[in-house]
């Protein structure tokens, strides 16, 4: 049932809106993982990031896309919780409970074992519009013991202008979505964070909506 709702929501609302109102400059889309288990690590500036990333996939596959999201925010209100869990298909993560890290990641592992594609925002927060915040290390702990899962970095730029944090007025802007090569296996958290931030820097050079003043 929720799969049908997700397909309807994306087919009738999100995909047309992304195509017409937002408008994507997508580069290297063919590098997106086509099947799970896989992790997409994107930068985070707007709630629209998640919707845009899922809409890059064909309707037959969108139920495989599972954004990892903060439980304290998305499960806080009844409707938002129902919508996030059933329509978007988020995996809620309890950020406050960091002393129990393995348990926190259990739901992610279950999804990966099923062959899902996880959407992670290593910055952890939407932060300042169009600025990349410090990358968190949770993503390393998720994949360190998994040899079947690769991380694909994705740079999104421009959505923070369309719908920035804390503002209700939506103003259409085109946005860039640049997909990078899957990262090679890393042995430490710092190495992974380094690889990721280098990848983001490189992908940024393909963004055309970036203001180079």
């Amino acid at each position, binding site marked *: 049932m929720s799969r049908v709702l997700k397909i309807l929501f994306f087919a009738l609302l999100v995909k047309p809106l992304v195509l017409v109102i937002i*408008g994507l*400059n997508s580069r290297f889309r063919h590098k997106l993982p086509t099947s799970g288990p896989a992790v997409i690590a994107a930068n985070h500036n707007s709630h629209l990031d998640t919707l845009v990333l899922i809409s890059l996939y064909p309707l037959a596959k969108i139920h495989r896309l599972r954004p990892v999201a903060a439980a304290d925010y998305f499960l806080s209100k009844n409707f938002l919780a129902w919508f996030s869990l059933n329509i978007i298909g988020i995996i809620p993560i309890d950020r406050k409970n960091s002393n129990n890290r393995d348990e926190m990641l259990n739901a992610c592992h279950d999804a990966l074992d099923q062959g899902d594609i996880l959407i992670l925002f290593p910055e952890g927060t939407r932060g300042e519009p169009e600025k990349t915040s410090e990358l968190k290390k949770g993503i390393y702990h998720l994949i360190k013991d998994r040899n079947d899962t690769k991380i694909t970095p994705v740079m999104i730029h421009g959505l923070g202008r369309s719908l920035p944090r804390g503002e209700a007025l939506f103003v259409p*802007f085109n946005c860039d979505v640049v997909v990078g090569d899957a990262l090679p296996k890393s042995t430490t958290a710092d190495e992974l964070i380094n690889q990721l931030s280098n990848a983001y820097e490189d992908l940024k050079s393909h963004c055309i909506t970036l203001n180079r*003043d």
Partner: protein
Amino acid sequence: MQFLAKIPSHSLYAMIIVIGLLSIATIVTIIFKYKNPEKNHTELKQRIISWWWIIGLLFVFLSISKNTAIIFFGFLSFLALKEFISIIPTRHIDRNVLFWVYISIPFQYYWVADSWYGMFIIFIPVYLFLFMPMRMVINGATDGFIKAAGVLHWVAMLTVFSISHIAYLIVLPEKNLNAGPMGLVLFLILMTEFNDVCQYLWGKLLGKDKIIPKVSPNKTWAGFFGGVASITLLSGFIGPTLTPLNTLESFGAGMIISLAGFIGDVVISSVKRDLSIKDSGSLIPGHGGILDRMDSLLYTAPLFFHYLYYLHY
């Protein structure tokens, strides 16, 4: 098929000729691909497919009714505006001013549909231009105020005001009954696009000395003069069939379109060069963004419109 019967004969012939030319280009591309299988043809192929989409959408929306054509051009304004403000630097605080530029589009195209010429011609340069700085003052950010105001005005001028001139051609009183209101639009758009192609071809054939190497390394004097001569001549023949212009006036229209098309092209090239980007978007595969395709039209539309308006309305 009923709506085909409503298309005035000269406009219908023009559409058929364009579809014929595009079919020839498609066949040539397929043969070329067959003979040189080792080369990468993706971009050429995308370009041709995109041309079919552009021509197809334009012809269909022009043929259905005046209002669908006006909505179509209004939508192009929206896409062009969105693309323009996405690539140029704007202040974050001016988002709500940009919102009003978007809102100006339905108003501007409503004046067109209403054939209210007086309002159509002053709405952007008087009302919107005076309103935007006021809205910016309410926001209260004075750092970079002048530059931001300049950018916003220019963007509205090119993407809303210029493009709406194409739509106004449709509501002008019919003076060439064989071509109908859509004849003017077809003439403007076809001549503008042929001009792009001719300048490119003449440049490839004979081009040596560059006109403005700092802006566009592909623009040569030979391409420029070749384009102006070809389009002036071609317009002289086509103008009287699609517009109320006589042969002599049509030569003039061709020259205006050719010169203005060149200028529109290099103006948008300068914008992209300033931003160090190659394409303004990726909406039209093989062509780039909507501005990459409409750059010449931003200049040819108002200039052709006012030339025609002065002579015949």
